[in-house]
C-alpha cells in the first residue's frame, strides 16, 4: 500500500492491513512536524508532490526494500497539504518474521524516499515561507 493522503494518517489501520500470520515483527517510522527548523519557529508546513511520479517512486521504494531485505509487507503513506505541529507527515510500516530485516528495511525505505520520491516541504514562519531542498 503506497498512498498519498490529505487527511490524518491512521497508522494502526495500515499496520493491521499488512500484518500476516507469518509476521513476528513490525517496524514503523513516523515523521512528525517539528515546531522549529534551522533555529526558526515553524508555524506550519505544506507538502506538495508530483503525484503520478511520487506514487510510482513510492512503489519503487517498496520493491527495492523487498528485494534487499527478508520482509513480508511494506506500506508507505505520505500526507500532502497543510500540516500543523506534531502531525504525522509520513508513516512507513514494515512487517517481517524477525526484527532485524524489519528495522533495516524501514530505515532503508525512509532514507531512499528522501532521495527519490518527488515531494517537497514548504515551511511557513512568522516572516515568510521557504521551500526546503533535500540534501541540505
Amino acid at each position, binding site marked *: 500500500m503506497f498512498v498519498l493522503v490529505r487527511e490524518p494518517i491512521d497508522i494502526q489501520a495500515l499496520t493491521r492491513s499488512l500484518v500476516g500470520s507469518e509476521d513476528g515483527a513490525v517496524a514503523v517510522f513516523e515523521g512528525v512536524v517539528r515546531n522549529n527548523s534551522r533555529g526558526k519557529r515553524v508555524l506550519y508546513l505544506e507538502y506538495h508532490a508530483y503525484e503520478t511520479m511520487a506514487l510510482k517512486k513510492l512503489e519503487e521504494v517498496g520493491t527495492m526494500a523487498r528485494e534487499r531485505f527478508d520482509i513480508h509487507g511494506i506500506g508507505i503513506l505520505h500526507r500532502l497539504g497543510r500540516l500543523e505541529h506534531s502531525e504525522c507527515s509520513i508513516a512507513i510500516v514494515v512487517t517481517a518474521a524477525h526484527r532485524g530485516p524489519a528495522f533495516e528495511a524501514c530505515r532503508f525505505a525512509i532514507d531512499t524516499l*528522501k532521495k527519490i520520491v518527488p*515531494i*517537497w516541504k514548504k515551511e511557513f514562519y512568522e516572516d515568510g515561507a521557504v521551500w526546503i531542498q533535500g540534501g541540505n
Partner: protein
Amino acid sequence: MSIKVLFFASLADLTGMRETEVDSRAHTSVASIYTKFARDFPRLEEHRASLLYAVNSEFVQPDSPVHDGDEVAFFPPVSGG
C-alpha cells in the same frame, strides 16, 4: 507536436507556472527545454546545478532526448518524509 512541461516547488514559484507546453520540434533534450525557460526566467539558472529532470515520471540525465507527447518535469532536490 507538443511536450508537456511541469515545474515544482521553488521552480513553480519562480516561473509562476506549474504546467505549460513547448513545441517538441524545437527541442532535442530536456536541458534545451530548461534553457528556453531560463531565458525568460534567468533565476532558473541558479537551480541548474542541483536540478532534477524527469521524463514521463522517470529520472533522466540532462542530455536525454525528448519526443512528442512526453511529460517533462523540472524540480529541486526532494524534501519529503
